[in-house]
């Protein structure tokens, strides 16, 4: 099997995000960037499947500006075989990303496409499902366990009520939950080796996809701040406040 894994470069999850003073977005200059966390789980799962002998090749792909390539390089360092970077500058919405990925799938013909269930920047949770629709492939979203069978996958999904298990035929799209696995760190020798692995550069414009956003971001604001609370001295005071001041018990 051949697995295509999509990764996205986002503000690192440990960074306290700040809104720009002119309300046009959030501050990204001089801010640490990393791979979107559940995309790391997607890469890890692909590598594990390859290590188990059930996959032959892993191709890592990202769509974004020049520096987005770092995320592909990181995937190569933990076990992907080669990379693809589709270059686009500026805002690109999940619909356009999924159309780009569709073109790449048509060319690469993978059996599986893995990606994180959601990007922690725009929090859209759309790309995997959209790609599945465009390809008319089955989708298994929010995967917390994947069992590779002959021509199918059995996938356990995290849903509101608990866990759901479905079986999807290959080819399929899987979006990965953080609980799927524990992503490994790249070793120094593997980071060095990854520098020699090829990354193919493609301009989004050459794929003939219109990436113009369909949604205007009118403004970005700080969420309303909670008014500063108080510290209570002891449990008695806490219960008294909850009862008589907040009136919630």
């Amino acid at each position, binding site marked *: 099997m051949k697995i295509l894994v999509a990764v996205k470069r986002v503000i690192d999850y440990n960074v306290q995000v700040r809104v720009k003073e002119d309300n046009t977005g959030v501050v990204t200059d001089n801010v640490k960037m990393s791979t979107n966390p559940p995309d790391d789980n997607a890469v890890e799962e692909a590598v594990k499947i390859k290590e188990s002998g059930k996959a032959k090749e892993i191709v890592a792909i990202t769509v974004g500006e020049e520096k987005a390539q770092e995320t592909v390089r990181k995937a190569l360092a933990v076990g992907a075989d080669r990379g693809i970077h589709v270059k686009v500058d500026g805002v690109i919405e999940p619909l356009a990303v999924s159309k780009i990925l569709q073109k790449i799938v048509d060319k690469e013909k993978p059996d599986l496409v893995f990606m994180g269930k959601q990007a922690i920047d725009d*929090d859209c949770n759309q790309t995997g499902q959209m790609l599945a629709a465009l390809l008319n492939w089955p989708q298994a979203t929010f995967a917390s366990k994947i069992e590779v069978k002959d021509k199918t996958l059995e996938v356990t999904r995290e849903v509101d009520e608990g866990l759901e298990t479905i079986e999807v035929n290959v080819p399929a799209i899987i979006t990965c939950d953080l609980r799927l696995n524990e992503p490994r760190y790249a070793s120094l020798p593997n980071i060095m080796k990854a520098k020699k692995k090829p990354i193919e550069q493609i301009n989004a414009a050459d794929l003939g996809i219109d990436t113009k956003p369909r949604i205007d971001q009118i403004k*970005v604001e700080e969420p309303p701040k909670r008014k500063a609370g108080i510290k209570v001295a002891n449990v008695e005071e806490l219960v008294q406040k909850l009862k008589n001041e907040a009136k919630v018990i």
Partner: protein
Amino acid sequence: MSSLLIAEHNNKEVKPFTLNAITAASQIDPDLHVLVLGHNSETVAKSISEIPNVKKVIHVDNEIYNNYIAENFTSAVVKHAENYSHIICSANTFGKNLMPRIAALLDISQVSDIIKVISADTFLRPIYAGNAFATVKSNDAKKCITIRPTSFEPAETSGGSAEIVKGDAGEQSNHTKFIKKEEIKSDRPELGTARIVISGGRGMQSGENFKLIQDVADKLNAAIGASRAAVDAGYITNDHQVGQTGKVVVPDLYIAVGISGAIQHLAGMKESKIIVAINKDGEAPIFSVADYGLEADLFDALPKFLAELNKLNTIQK
């Protein structure tokens, strides 16, 4: 034009988040139609027809909708989408799984997880796990919208009498098969809709110590939550997780015990009406969002808290 909302249900009852989504949908467009895709689901169609905000119910009853498979639902929704300006559903795992598949086939750039309706094409939505709010305007002719349920009150469920019409089923996908659903049953209120939530974090130190949380939860008729750290440490199962990757809760009272207040946890609870933090580290970030902070050892404070609650003659249920 009218709006079309896709209902979530189990063929017997409507799921609560659909009621919140109905409130938001009728703010977008009062002429709200609801699509019920199910099997032997007459009672669901009937109960939705009694919601005053609903103007029409389109009921498609077919065995392919016995279990929820996004591929099967998508085909039916696309078939019914033509005469609607907005396609809407709740932004829980049901709607998150379904709506992008519909949007892509309709060539619409979806607006996910809105928390406020500003106008029929402009919405407020959280980004970066709620650390920023974006006002966005959709320029597609038809719009696909998902609703964050906890940001809208549930719709009234009686007094209406919308017409129920039968609709056609869509295609069946033979590439996806439902195998099983393991629902986690509990006598407690559901985390997503409970009036009071008490959550434990890494400070609980073990799964056994969650007994202290359970005792208080029993007294207050509260749901039990947990931070990701507590779930990852194996103290409690992941269906209790509150946060960016778990559930977003907005109870009247949220009690955070032994939780430091990582950004991703705050994203899941900071809209709660009243927040209490009990933590022995006075510098813990959780105190910056707490209305009432108690700097104390939780192993000392929780039994005392329960004892004080027991002294009260009345506890609101």
